[in-house]
């Protein structure tokens, strides 16, 4: 999948904005939002929030998780843990990128937050790579993807599933005592677990 498609999926998440205009309820495919009252916070999809922000029609309320202390803790925990920790948001990277990109002025410490989120992302990506390598080395036939976000899972496709298919085929062939003739292919599943 293309990262933009994942961004599109992530854009449906609801965030809070403070509009500077008043308007009736609006009816969208994903639901109805509003009524908009100037100065009163309300929840809208991320894509709408970004669009209104770009037109200078609202301020974006920083999401709860997008806060320095919170992220510092998260980063420490991510560094300490061998496994992936749970992210506050299933699309944290998409949300951070869009909000910080369009509404950096609404977020306190936006530059620091940008850096720390990128740090967390980098730590997770490097962990992902090393555990992929470990998974292949140990010959495990499945990996647990707990707490990985869609964007991160997408970054190992198609390499990891394809490589595991290949490995499985070679292993099947290795187990098979009877001669395999030309133009035969087999599939099966077995093995031990490994955290990816």
């Amino acid at each position, binding site marked *: 999948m293309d990262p933009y498609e994942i961004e599109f999926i992530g854009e449906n998440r609801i965030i809070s904005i403070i509009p500077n205009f008043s308007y009736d309820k609006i009816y969208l495919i994903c639901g109805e939002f509003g009524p908009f009252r100037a100065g009163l916070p309300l929840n809208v999809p991320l894509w709408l929030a970004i669009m209104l922000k770009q037109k200078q029609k609202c301020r974006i309320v920083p999401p709860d998780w997008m806060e320095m202390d919170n992220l510092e803790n998260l980063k420490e925990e991510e560094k300490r843990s061998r496994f992936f920790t749970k992210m506050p948001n299933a699309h944290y990277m998409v949300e951070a990128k869009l909000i910080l990109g369009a509404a950096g002025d609404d977020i306190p410490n936006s530059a620091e937050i940008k850096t720390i989120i990128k740090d967390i992302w980098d730590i997770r990506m490097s962990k992902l790579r*090393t555990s992929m*390598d470990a998974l292949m080395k140990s010959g495990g036939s499945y990996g647990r993807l707990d707490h990985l976000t869609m964007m991160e899972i997408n*970054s190992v496709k198609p*390499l990891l599933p394809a490589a595991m298919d290949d490995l499985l085929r070679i292993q099947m062939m*290795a187990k098979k005592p009877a001669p395999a*003739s*030309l133009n035969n292919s087999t599939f099966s599943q077995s093995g031990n677990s490994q955290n990816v």
Partner: protein
Amino acid sequence: MTNSNYLNISDILVSNEKIPCKILQDLPKMGFLDPSATEDDLKVGSNVEIPLWLGETLYSRRPPLVSVDLPKIYKDAYREILNADACTIDLHKFAQYFYELGCYIAKYDIKGEVATTLVNTFKQRFRMLLAASVSNDSIGTMQPLSVSERERAAAAAATEHALSAWLQRGDSPLTTACMVANHRKRKRAEMEML
């Protein structure tokens, strides 16, 4: 590894790889198979290199007309290198279809060591695929990969490229400050890889 289907092009290419065989019966009028032969007939005991598809067919005759030998990349000497460190071998030079051909060849190895070597080699070389997918020097890192490995690495590189393009896009993309990038802890991924 591609699925071996009847009309799968890469599978056809694999079955066209030459394998060394020893002739077990006199084969009249088959001398053309051996370029060094002087006579029209192929004599018992001569060694020829014939395509896998022909070798398999002649071998499966009862009694077999040929005995199939292992290509040199699957023999003891190379197996030792592969088991020690598979990443040092340039598979593209030695055996373009290393894994695919290996799957066919393994059954002629009575001790069954070829199969183990194939699995080990694949596990070890996965690291090279990872490295090739993120590397800027794509020619250098892709060069030693076998055909199927190259396909994998190219697909992975495309994903990687799309992801970094996404991260860079916009007027205020999330990028690493160069001060942070030069800091030692950033090298973690590389250090752990090595």
